[in-house]
Structure formats: structure tokens, C-alpha cells
């Protein structure tokens, strides 16, 4: 009995090992790690949709160095603890390229593991500057930094010459980081900051905060964080007749804010990456998304597409599938992607990335301001 069990176990593990080996020889696995579930899953949808499309199209064009790309998908729920588990699973699965993670607070701990294990990571959405500040070799992004986005928002608010501004954040790495950047920009411009304080992510009652904003008599409120909280703040502020203009980063700019805030979302200002889907050269790509019934207009769809494409182009430029060679190729080359020409600096940040101020409408559409 024991021996037959042993035999069975050996047979199974041998065949698993064989399958794994066969898999690795024929294909290049691309891990996609982001929130499939949880409060910010809609951003995950953008990420997965963009990355899948890129893999599909690259494979249709003959793959990379004759090999096919295979997507391996992981759900990190945008939770830092879960992100570490996902990163370890990726290592065990033998994946060597990751598109992700999405939330900065997930990307930060996961990137430690990727760097240690020699896995190349391109995040299509994490904007926290700290991620690329540590001198890591294998960490890249296809999005700008809070230190670029914050000043865009701060300068816009300052140009409207407000009396007093309140800056609120959700105490998370992304939200607080960008809120701090906005506050510093405003301070440099000599604008009075009436308050700078945090709320708890996941909280639902903001009536006290709204009352406080009313008393502080602010005419602009900047919120660093995601849409579930800002949606409720907008709605509760409208209930309480707070007359102030709200502004937020790209983390609030998606249609779900409309289902929460309803009419109150009208006139919200959002800094977003420019609408890459409106560029003339991307129209055939946009049609490909629409043919699949997917929406390419979300801020992270084409950044995720570009992330996959950069990995593929990097492998071809390096003529090697070793992540370190690919990283070196990415730093030295210049690549044409749907988000424009990408060149990397030493840290792994794009040399130029632009954020644009949009006005959000209650039907979920947006129009550029300025």
C-alpha cells in the first residue's frame, strides 16, 4: 500500500514537472497581477483587459522570438498582504515577467520579492514615487509619478485663485503621497491650506468631515485616494449643501464614482493620463477593443497594453529572455507604444509622462479643462 502510494506520488510529481518544463520551453509566461475582486476591482478590469489584448495581438503577429506569450493571472485584491502571497506564487510558478501590481501599496511589497527573485515587473498604474526610489534594477512603470501628478493638480487649483483649500487623503501610500504633493505645491504658491487630514479607507460616514469642511469655509477640496470614499464624500457634501469644488487623482476617475455619488459627481476635477484612446494612431487598437465589447477609455487599459508590449519589445531587443538583459535593453532603447514613445531613466521611470486635468460629468463622461 505504502509503496504503491509512493509510486503514485512520484509518477504524479514527475508528470507535473514534465508538464512544467514543456510549458516553459514553448512559451513565455506573462504574469498579470492586480485586483480582480475587492473595492477597486474596476481598475483591475482595465489592467487585465489591456494586457490580454496586447498578448493576443502579439501572438497573432507571430509572438516574441518565435515563442507565444501566455497570460497567467493573479488576484491581489489590492491588499498588500495578498500581494506578497501573489508574488510568492508567481515565483513558484516560474513566471519571469509581471504586469502589475495596480495599487502602489501592493506594488511596493511585491516588488521587493520580484527584485530578489530576478523577475521583471512593469506596473501600469502605481504612481507612488517610492517604488522606483530604491535603486532596483527590474522595476519599471508605464505611468507617471505622484510627484508629477500632484503638481499638475496643485497648479490647477492655484490658477483658480481659491481663498482656502482643504486637502484630504485616505492614509494609504498612494492617497497620502499624492495629497502631500498637492499640499506642498499649493504651499509654494502661497495658497492657504485650511486643513490636511486623513480619513479611514472603507469608512462610510463622512458627515462630520463635511461639517468641518463647511465651517472651514473652503472653496476647493483635494482628495487623495480612491472613488469609494470620494464618491460618498461628494454625495454627503451635496446633502449638507457644501459649496466647494472637489478634485482628485486618477484613482477616482472611473464610472463607478457615478453610481455612488450620482448627480454629485458633476463638475468633479480629475487629473488623468491623457486619453490615449482618442489619439489618431490608436484607432485600429480602439476598434479591436470595441470588437471584443471592451472599453479602452479607462486610464489603465492602454498603459497595461504598453507594459506587455514593452516586455515583448525588450525581449526582442535583448535577444534574450533573461529579465536582467531585458531590463538593460529597456533602459537603453526607445519604444513606440500606444502611450507614446517610451524611454526609461535609470530608476525605471518614463522620461516623460503627462497628466491632464479633466472635468468629470454625472453621466460618467469627461471633458478636458484648460
Amino acid at each position, binding site marked *: 500500500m505504502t509503496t504503491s502510494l509512493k509510486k503514485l506520488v512520484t509518477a504524479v510529481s514527475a508528470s507535473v514537472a514534465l508538464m512544467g518544463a514543456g510549458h516553459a520551453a514553448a512559451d513565455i509566461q506573462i504574469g498579470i497581477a492586480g485586483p480582480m475582486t475587492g473595492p477597486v476591482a474596476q481598475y483591475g478590469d482595465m489592467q487585465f483587459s489591456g494586457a490580454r489584448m496586447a498578448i493576443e495581438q502579439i501572438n497573432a503577429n507571430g509572438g516574441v522570438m518565435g515563442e507565444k506569450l501566455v497570460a497567467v493571472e493573479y488576484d491581489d485584491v489590492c491588499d498588500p498582504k495578498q500581494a506578497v502571497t501573489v508574488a510568492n506564487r508567481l515565483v513558484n510558478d516560474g513566471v519571469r515577467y509581471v504586469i502589475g501590481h495596480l495599487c502602489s501599496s501592493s506594488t511596493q511589497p511585491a516588488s521587493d520579492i520580484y527584485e530578489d527573485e530576478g523577475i521583471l515587473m512593469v506596473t501600469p498604474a502605481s504612481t507612488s514615487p517610492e517604488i522606483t526610489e530604491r535603486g532596483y534594477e527590474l522595476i519599471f512603470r508605464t505611468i507617471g509619478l505622484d510627484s508629477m501628478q500632484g503638481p499638475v493638480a496643485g497648479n490647477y487649483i492655484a490658477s483658480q485663485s481659491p481663498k482656502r483649500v482643504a486637502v484630504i487623503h485616505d492614509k494609504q501610500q498612494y492617497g497620502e503621497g499624492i495629497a502631500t504633493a498637492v499640499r506642498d505645491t499649493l504651499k509654494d504658491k502661497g495658497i492657504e491650506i485650511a486643513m490636511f487630514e486623513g480619513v479611514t479607507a472603507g469608512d462610510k*460616514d463622512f458627515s462630520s*468631515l463635511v461639517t468641518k469642511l463647511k*465651517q472651514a469655509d473652503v472653496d476647493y477640496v483635494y482628495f487623495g485616494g480612491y472613488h469609494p470614499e470620494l464618491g460618498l464624500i461628494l454625495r454627503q457634501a451635496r446633502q449638507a449643501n457644501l459649496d466647494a469644488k472637489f478634485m482628485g487623482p486618477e484613482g477616482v476617475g472611473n464610472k463607478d464614482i457615478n453610481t455612488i455619488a450620482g448627480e454629485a459627481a458633476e463638475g468633479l476635477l480629475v487629473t488623468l493620463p491623457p486619453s490615449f484612446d482618442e489619439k489618431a494612431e490608436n484607432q485600429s487598437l480602439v476598434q479591436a477593443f470595441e470588437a471584443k465589447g471592451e472599453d479602452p477609455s479607462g486610464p489603465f487599459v492602454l498603459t497595461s497594453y504598453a507594459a506587455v508590449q514593452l516586455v515583448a519589445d525588450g525581449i526582442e531587443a535583448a535577444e534574450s529572455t533573461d529579465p536582467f538583459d531585458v531590463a538593460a535593453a529597456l533602459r537603453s532603447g526607445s519604444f513606440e507604444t500606444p502611450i507614446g514613445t517610451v524611454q526609461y531613466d535609470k530608476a525605471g521611470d518614463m522620461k516623460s509622462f503627462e497628466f491632464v486635468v479633466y472635468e468629470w460629468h454625472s453621466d460618467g463622461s469627461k471633458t478636458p479643462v484648460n
Partner: protein
Amino acid sequence: MQDLLYFSQQLINGLTIGSAYALIAIGYTMVYGIIGMINFAHGEIYMIGAYTALIAITGLTALGLAWLPLILVVALLCAMLVSSSMGWAVERVAYRPVRGRHRLIPLISAIGMSIFLQNYVHLAQGSRNVGFPALIEGGFNFGSDGNFQMSLSYMQITIFVTTLICMTALSLFISRSRTGRACRAVSQDLGMASLLGIDTNRIISATFIIGAALAAVAGLLLGMYYGSIDPLFGFIAGLKAFTAAVLGGIGSIPGAMLGGLILGVAESMTSGYLSGEYKDVVSFGLLILILLFKPTGLLGKPEVEKI
């Protein structure tokens, strides 16, 4: 003058949330009073009540019903019905089989039930925040000074009034009705009550059903007041209501009401005068202080060890 208005506004905000906490806290306190266990799945019952109400509202609006009071009453009844059956089922499935065992066993069973229900709603309803339609809008504005104006929304009034009605009905039920008297008897001595011919299983089920129905009322009210719900929002609300129940004296119904109101006001004053960041610190700090210095709570009676 403005300071006074500001204070009163924060007081209104706090009392609104506090009365909803009190509604949820009743479920904790009644169950504890009768079988001495903490029903950690109660927050999830509240969350399910909110989801049911939202589904009912959406369905009724889709059917073309436009008369608001009818929509609200039907949604409330649906939510109470579903939550009560859930409360009853949870007791039957997870607590009755382990009743009378070591205290830890029902507690673990309750935590398991809570995780199960959370994940069930995750799967069934999706994990996104869903917006709750603003059915009761507008309110009174008064007492303006400078740029600050106080406001009392119709929604806040609805929450106060509904809570008041529920609490009065509950007190009358407990003090006057036959089942209420049986409830009190069972909470004093379960074994003796059953010797005297009270069907204790039925009374315990009734307790769960009443607690769940009140939590459903809170679910509908707070869903509308906040504006969005998600599968995880019952957890923290449950913890807050539990704190309220302990604060007022667990096992005591007036205690739960008082505890809820104190907690709500403490939270809104902390956000109002300190910072929203410290809101949870203050509410759970309060819980620790009460447990340290007055474990029986504000209105709880010291437990006499029965021999």
C-alpha cells in the same frame, strides 16, 4: 455663536449614526443576555439587510412604482424578512448544535459564520461598492451665522424617528407581551425557565429573529444615509455596535441604546474637533477603558455567579 452651531451640527451627526448603532447593538445585547454568547455574524446580518433592501428598491423602481412611502415600506419588510430568516437559520445551523459546550466553541462558530456570509455576498453580489439611490433628499436649514449654516436632513429625521419607533415597540414587547416575559425569564435562568414549561429553543430563536429584524432596519436606513454599500461594511459596523453594547452594559437593552448614542457622538466629536483619523481609535479606546474600569458597562448589572 458659530462654535455653538458647529457643535450642535456635530451632535446631530453623531446622534444619527449613534441611533443606528443602537439598533444593531440590540441584536448583540439580547443574544448575550439570553445565551451568553457573542454573535459575531450579526454585522453580516445587517449587511444582508442592506443588500436585500437595495435589491427590493431597485426591483420596485424597475416595476414602475413611484410612490416613495410604499417603496420604503416594502423594501423594509423584505429586508426584515430576509434578515430574520437568516438570523434564525444562523442560530439553527451554527449555534444550536454547539450550545452548552465550552464558551469558545460557539464564538469560533460565530466568526466562521461571519466569514462565510461575507464571502457569500461577495460571490452573489460582487465585491464592488454599489450606490444606494438617494430616496429621501433635502432637509431643513436654519441657524446660519456667517458662512456656516446648520442643516438637519429629512434622512436624519427619518433615522431618529424610525429608531425611536423600533425601540419603543421593542420595550413594550419585552415588558408587556407573553413572549417578552418568557424572554426575560430565560435570560434570568435558562434551566429554570425550561423546567417551568417555557419552550426555551423557541425563545432563543425569537431573540435572533428580533435582533436580525432590527439590524435590517438599520441596514436600510444607513444604506440610504451613507449612499453606498459593500460586502465588507457589516464587519466594522458590527464591531462598533458590539462596542456600543459593551459600553452600555451587555445584556441590557436600554444600555445598548445609550451605548450606541454615546459612541456615535464620541465619533463625530472626534472627527469634528480632532481628526477623522482618530475616530476608530477613540471608539475602540473607549471599549478598552470600559472593559478595564467598568466591565459591566454603564447600565449593566454585575453578574451574580449562579450556583
